[in-house]
């Protein structure tokens, strides 16, 4: 290397240039490494995000099955209750009508036979 005040030789200048060039290469490498790491980080995050969303699709499918079963169960219970109500109501109608059938028939016969 040349000393201050001393006219640098071509060789010295070449050496200094190479020295700085090496630094530049090293700097480039630092930035390239950072770029690669940055890309990896984003890409990793995107993969995780995609996985999360894909898990979500599966969760949604499971949710759909679960809710369908819940609703189906509720429906079956409602249907069973409706049938129970119907059977009870039918029994009650049968009982009530049996008690009043004779009265109705007599009323009808009387009405049919009665003239002015």
């Amino acid at each position, binding site marked *: *290397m*040349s*000393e*201050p005040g001393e006219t640098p030789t071509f060789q010295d200048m070449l050496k*200094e240039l190479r020295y*700085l060039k*090496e*630094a*530049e290469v*090293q*700097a*480039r490498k*630092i*930035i390239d*490494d*950072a*770029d690669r*790491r*940055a*890309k990896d*980080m*984003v890409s*990793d*995050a995107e993969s*995780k*995000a*995609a996985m*999360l*969303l894909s*898990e*979500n699709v599966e*969760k*949604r499918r499971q*949710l*759909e099955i679960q*809710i*369908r079963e*819940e*609703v189906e169960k509720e*429906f079956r219970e*409602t*249907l069973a209750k*409706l049938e129970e109500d*119907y059977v009870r*109501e*039918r029994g009650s*109608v049968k009982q*009530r*009508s049996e008690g*009043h*059938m004779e009265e*109705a*028939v007599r*009323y*009808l016969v009387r*009405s*049919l*036979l009665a*003239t*002015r």
Partner: protein
Amino acid sequence: MTKNTESLEAMRQKIIQDAEAEALRIITQAAKRADEVLEAAKQESSYEEDVDRRRIKDGHQATDQERVSEAMSEYTALMSSYKSEIMDNIYQETLRRVKVHVDSVEYSFTLEGLIVEAGIALGGGELTVWVNQEDAGKAGGQLLARASAEVSKVAGKETRLTLNKEPLETVGGARLVQAESKATVDNTFEGRLKRLKEQKESELENMVFG
């Protein structure tokens, strides 16, 4: 170390420091971007789960409501049909008992009453009387003559009742047709029962079903 060397070293360090600063900026920005991507995915997942749960449940419940309504309608129809069946049994029993009366001696008075009632309703005049084959024997002669006189008296119009030659298919009672207007009064027991059903339907159902 000479000054020139120091200056060169300072330049090298500056280049490296700048590169490291740039690298740090790049990494920081990437980390921020990665966080944003993950956060957005998390938010989307969480949001969709809530929305899906509601959407799926609402969808199924809407269909379910329709199915329940259909089932309720079916049971209502079944109940209505069961009640109709009971009422039909009552009407059949009524006609059976009326038939017993038709076979009794008192029936002639009833038949006369039914003919007179129908004749008055038609306002008298030339009237044709339709009865069944068995009643044709009972209605002939005396009965029709008495009935004609009664209708004439009440309706205030000369009345002549003529027995139709063709018999009518009925349990009993009579159907009268006015010769001029062709107006008809169906006073057979089936006709009377039909009118009773129409006029007293709710009253009868209340009586039977409470």
